[in-house]
């Protein structure tokens, strides 16, 4: 099953400049692995060395943060859209 994955501007260079790509899988983890296989440059920017989601990245399944679902085991369905967004933070400290 091919699922649409939306990429933020910072990751597009690693995906040949594309804003939207398609990746195969039944879960978020499988989708991300498929994405990494197609675009190896995305790997370290999305997943930590231990295979978990990088803490500076948020992954949404439609309108839901997968960290509040089943994380990488979250199931996807036909027509779902996965969005990868960088965590945006800072401050005066």
């Amino acid at each position, binding site marked *: 099953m091919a699922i649409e994955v939306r990429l*933020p*501007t910072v990751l597009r260079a690693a995906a040949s400049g594309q804003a939207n790509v398609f990746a195969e899988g039944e879960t978020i983890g499988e989708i991300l692995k498929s994405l990494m296989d197609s675009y190896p440059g995305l790997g370290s920017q999305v997943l930590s060395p231990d295979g978990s989601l990088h803490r500076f990245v948020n992954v949404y399944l439609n309108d839901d943060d997968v960290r509040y679902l089943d994380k990488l085991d979250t199931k996807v369905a036909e027509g779902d859209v996965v969005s990868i967004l*960088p965590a*945006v*933070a*800072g*401050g005066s*400290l």
Partner: protein
Amino acid sequence: MLTISQIYLDKMMAHAIREYPLEACGLISGEQDIVSGFYPTRNDAASARIYTVNPLDYLKADRDAEAKGAAIIGVMHSHTHSDAYPSSTDVAQAPDPSWHYILVSLKHKDPILRSFSIVDGKIVEESVVRLNY
């Protein structure tokens, strides 16, 4: 260089003042160096010293910008008690080298707005061209 309508500058400064004493944050959309939208976002840190853009607000802003043929090209946040200059936290957590980083300082009587690029930890101020429409 960042080209931006006075309307969006006013919206950013109003957002900063409205959220005071907490830091305010928001996202700007557009194409490269030309701003075509501003999206105030929730500060999940709810702090006077740090900010975290609410990711769902970011997602919605990203979708809206995309639907209008634009993209998210930067982030605005306020410094409530310090100058409009990126802190070490801002530099360490800058998510995208192609983005514009807009700072609004409320340290003085009138808000001060400046814009920067942050690439590989290097801060470079950019000129802000204000359009009167």
